[in-house]
């Protein structure tokens, strides 16, 4: 683990200080509320992992009905059809709208599933030795934080279609119950990612350095 040397930093915690994650102001460890912005201070958020897992579980649970229930109910002159997320994608493929089908497939299936896996991996990797370096896990966390919101796109598409396509008997589109389940799943997963304290990714670098008997550290 010699190559970790350059990544050892003097952290606020090691200096006996606590940083406000909202406004980045630094306070003595004894303070429990940031005097500048009023946010609660915690050197390491001890409840972080429990909250990550709690939101993660409800997020996964909401994602199941989101895929089983219909997302859109379409009525035309002859027929009435109920489409699930995947069903809608297949429908689009049949209509030769492959580009849009891929956008929907990535936003509503690919990203949510990848996000569940990524958050679970990050939370598990806090406590054990991992293949990915802290830098890679940090990048993974940033991607999850950035991309999570974009899953909401499918809910907005359903909203626009339902408001717009109301042509009496010719055609009408109405939202199905999966839209609520899907929106909840996206929101819960965003809360799960926000509950994760990324400082935990970096802590083990200092801890392993300390157990190796104190290498030279930059100040």
């Amino acid at each position, binding site marked *: 683990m010699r190559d970790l040397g350059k990544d050892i930093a003097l952290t606020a915690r090691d200096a006996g200080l606590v940083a406000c994650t909202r406004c*980045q102001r630094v306070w003595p460890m004894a303070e429990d509320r940031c005097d500048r*912005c009023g946010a609660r201070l915690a050197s390491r958020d001890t409840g972080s992992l429990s909250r990550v897992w709690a939101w993660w579980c409800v997020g996964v649970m909401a994602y199941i009905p989101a895929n089983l229930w219909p997302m859109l109910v379409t009525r035309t002159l002859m027929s009435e059809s109920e489409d699930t997320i995947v069903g809608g994608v297949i429908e689009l493929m049949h209509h030769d709208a492959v580009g849009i089908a891929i956008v929907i497939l990535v936003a509503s299936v690919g990203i949510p599933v990848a996000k569940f896996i990524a958050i679970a991996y990050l939370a598990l990797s806090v406590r054990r030795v991992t293949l990915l370096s*802290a830098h890679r896990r940090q990048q993974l966390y940033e991607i999850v934080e950035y991309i999570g919101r974009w899953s909401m796109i499918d809910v907005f*598409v359903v909203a626009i*279609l339902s408001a717009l396509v109301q042509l009496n008997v010719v055609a009408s589109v109405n939202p199905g119950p999966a839209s609520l389940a899907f929106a909840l799943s996206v929101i819960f997963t965003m809360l799960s990612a926000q509950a994760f304290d990324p400082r935990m990714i*970096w802590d083990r670098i200092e801890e392993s350095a300390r157990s190796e008997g104190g290498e030279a550290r930059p100040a």
Partner: protein
Amino acid sequence: MLPDPAELIACPTCDALYRARQPAAGERAVCERCHTVLIAPRARAGMSIIMLSLATLILVAGAINFPFLRISRAGFGNDASILDTALAFTEGPLQLLSLAVLALIVLIPATRALLTLYVLTPVVMDRSPWRGAAQAFRLSEALRPWSMAEIFSIGCAVALVKVADLANLTFGPAFWMFCVLTVVVVVQDQWMDRWSVWASLDREAAT
């Protein structure tokens, strides 16, 4: 011996501690190990951000009031405003979703613009901050991931392609206003430097 904590800055991502100082023009301060951007000031950003916030409010008001989209086919037509779109979920528990969508695409972007005006106007005019400016700025930052105007506009694009071969589409002024709104919101987020705002709130409060 450590200096006064007020002169330090800790990386919010990896907790590395640095001595904070104003970067030279055009430079940014980046955390050495996790590469999180800590300080990225822009010249005259305050005034620009205020203008963009005002633009946001005007565009939101306009986008709500003007027609958004219209489709027609076989003698039947239908208009949808932004509000109709947000409130499209009308059945039972789906109404909750209407509230959420309304908040995500209209209320939260507008609230963030108002909070930003409240925080930055006195700073730019070299006055002492208005009461509760720090809390207002913290709230505005906390709301940032929940402001989804730009995602809604990509959703528009997807929905329009889906409808295009089903019926004739007409774009109302609100559609174009929302497109501009998306750009304004994104640019404003790029220009906002949290450290500079906090530093100026501190400085103005001290005088």
